[in-house]
Each structure stands twice: as structure tokens, then as C-alpha cells.
């Protein structure tokens, strides 16, 4: 069952082709909830990637040991451990980020992206391959969260990473920092990505070039 792709493809696939948010629509809860500012998106992406990497490391190492029947229970305990580690880390060293992300850090434990990668990949592949896969997926996740955060922060607050870039003439679109703004922006981003990936257009591109 183990993957036969080249190591490079294993790493790259999560960033665009199998991007957890854009292609698989996984982990939408944090994607929609915390991306009202680029900083929050980045912090959430990094925390999720940390959990993903460490759980993949542990699960791929233990994969031959864990009996099939209790694997989900085992995975969840491992994931929850690292989520708690990340949560405590933020609370101890970055209290302001921890305060602004609120309950969403503990909620990483139910992010389907993480359990999904363990079930689909780390439990069937070696440590190195699993780490590459997780790193790619994590970077893809961070990428989407930061892009969403940047768009929503510019339109919703007139700033980017906390620095005001639009002058007084700009009236922030309040909707962008509210949940509907998250749905709208994500929907438009996915539509654009699908349009770009559209096989008929890809053929057109090849024909032209």
C-alpha cells in the first residue's frame, strides 16, 4: 500500500495539486475561523504543521506496532498530545497570539487534515516519506491560510500583518473579517484554482505554447 511516488513529488503534491484546503477541502474550520488577519493565519498554519509533523513522525515510527483495530484511538491520543504541547507553547511564549486564536488551537485535534494524513499516509509509509508528505501538506495549509488572511485583512481592516497600508480614504469592508467574508474569499479562491487547473484550459495552454 505504500506510496511509490518520487520523494520530490511526495513533498510538492501537498502544496498545490493535493493542497489540503483547495483540493481536498480539509481543515475548513480553522481555515474559515482564524484567517481574519494574516498573523493569525500564519500562527495557525505553523501550529497545525507542527502537530502534523510530530504526529506523522511518531505514527510512522509505530505503524507496525499499532494493531489495526485500535489505530484511531492511538492516533488521536498522539495527535492530542502534540496539540496540547503546541497550545501550552503558545500560551507560555506568545500569550498574545494564544489569546487571539482562542479555542482554535485546541481544536486542531479535530482537524481532519491531521487524522486524514495519518490514516492515509503515515500509517502506510516510512518515517522519511511521511515527514516529507506532512511538510508539503503543512506548507500548503500555511500558504492558503496566509493568502486568505492577507486578502481578508487588507479588505476588512486596511492593513497587512498588522501594518496599516491603506489610507483613511478606505472604508474597511466589515464583512471580510466576519465569517461570511471567509466563505466568500475561500469560495472565490477555490473557483480560481479550479479554473486554473481546468483540464480543458490546460490543453489550450499546451496547444498555444
Amino acid at each position, binding site marked *: 500500500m505504500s506510496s511509490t511516488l518520487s520523494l520530490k513529488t511526495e513533498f510538492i503534491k501537498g502544496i498545490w495539486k493535493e493542497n489540503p484546503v483547495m483540493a481536498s477541502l480539509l481543515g475548513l474550520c480553522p481555515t474559515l475561523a482564524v484567517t481574519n488577519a494574516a498573523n493569525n493565519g500564519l500562527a495557525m498554519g505553523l501550529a497545525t504543521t507542527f502537530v502534523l509533523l510530530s504526529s506523522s513522525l511518531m505514527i510512522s515510527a509505530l505503524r507496525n506496532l*499499532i494493531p489495526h483495530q485500535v489505530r484511531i*484511538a492511538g492516533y488521536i491520543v498522539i495527535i492530542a498530545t502534540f496539540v496540547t*504541547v503546541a497550545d*501550552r507553547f503558545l500560551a507560555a511564549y506568545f500569550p498574545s497570539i494564544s489569546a487571539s486564536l482562542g479555542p482554535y488551537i485546541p481544536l486542531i485535534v479535530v482537524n481532519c487534515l491531521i487524522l486524514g494524513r495519518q490514516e492515509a499516509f503515515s500509517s502506510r509509509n516510512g518515517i522519511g516519506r511521511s515527514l516529507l508528505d506532512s511538510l508539503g501538506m503543512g506548507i500548503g495549509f500555511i500558504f492558503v491560510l496566509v493568502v486568505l488572511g492577507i486578502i481578508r485583512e487588507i479588505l476588512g481592516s486596511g492593513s497587512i500583518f498588522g501594518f496599516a497600508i491603506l489610507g483613511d480614504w478606505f472604508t474597511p469592508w*466589515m464583512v471580510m473579517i466576519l465569517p461570511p467574508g471567509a466563505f466568500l474569499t475561500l469560495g472565490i479562491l477555490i473557483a480560481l484554482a479550479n479554473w486554473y487547473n481546468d483540464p480543458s484550459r490546460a490543453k489550450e495552454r499546451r496547444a498555444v505554447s
Partner: protein
Amino acid sequence: MSKMSLSTRMILVLTLITVLSGGILAGWDTITKPKIAFHRQEALKAAIGDVLPAHDTYSSEETEFGTIYIATRDSSDQPVGVAFMAMGSGFQGELRIMVGLSPEMTQLTGIKVLEQIETPGLGTKIVVDPSNKKDPYWFPAQFRGVHVSPELVVVKNAKPTQNNEVQGITGATISSKAVTDILNNQIANIKTVWTSRGGPES
């Protein structure tokens, strides 16, 4: 391995995983616990400092309506103010407000909204109002010095005329009202605690 029955193996592996997880968490906790406690303490101190007049130390006291913090100066035994938390529902979710009262229980010395999930741009003006460039903190600031008897009152679209009135936020009447309701309620509670305790003299 193969000789072990499946159930023994399941129990063993899960035990191993939980022990491992417990170990990681216990170790991590000893490292981070003092830091987290320190940040909590700092945040509390900052909030109390924001709502009470200048003081040197404060002591905390448990009451049936939550902890109250009594601030004093080194030069005198008389408290300069009493701070406490007030909680209640706002427009969308719970509001947690740190409140400072004068030791005579007559005037507010300040309030600070610590937690809220009001509508951004409207209800959030109870914390900060970015549309008011000159004075973004006008809403919480106007509570300083307001009289609490008979109770706090919100006035709309007008400047307050009585000493127990505050100006409401245009478009966020419910949030403004929620703040004063929560304050009125908890102030009444703390007043009873404070009088039963013997007042400012004790």
C-alpha cells in the same frame, strides 16, 4: 509478537502510547507552567492597574461573587479601590469585564472589557473605536468617575447630563446596554459583600 493474543497486544500498545503521551505532557508542563502562570498574573495586574487609581499593592479575597482585589498604597491602610470581574451576556456571547470601584462604592474608577465576541466594527466599540481617531477609547473611558447609584444608565444620541449616565454607541445599543446591565448587576452583588464585610474601614 505473533505469540501474543490480539487483545493483549492492543492493551500493551495503547498503554505504551498513553504512557509516552503522559510523559511528554508532564515534562512539557513543568517547563511551561511557571511561564503561563506569570503571563496570567501579569495580565491580571495590568487589568487591575487599568481600572483602579494608582496603588502599590493589592490583596485578593474570595467572595461568593468571585474574587475581589483590594488595592492599597504603602502610605496608608485605607484601600484606594476595589476591582472585580463582572460577567454576563452581550449581543452575541459572554462579556468579561474588569471593574474598578471606589472604596465608598459610589463611583467607578474604570472598566476594561477583557473578553467579548461582539459584532466587529459595532459592538467591539465597547473595547476600542477605530472610527473615532481622536479618542478611540471613548466608550470605556467615560465610565471613569461615573456614579453607580441608583444605577448606570445608557443615553442614546446625546451627551450624558446626569452623573450616572454614559453615552451609548450608535448602532450598538444592545452591546452598550449589555455592559451597563452586567455592571449594575455585579456592582449590586459586590456592594452587599462589601457592607457585610464591614466597609472600607476593615
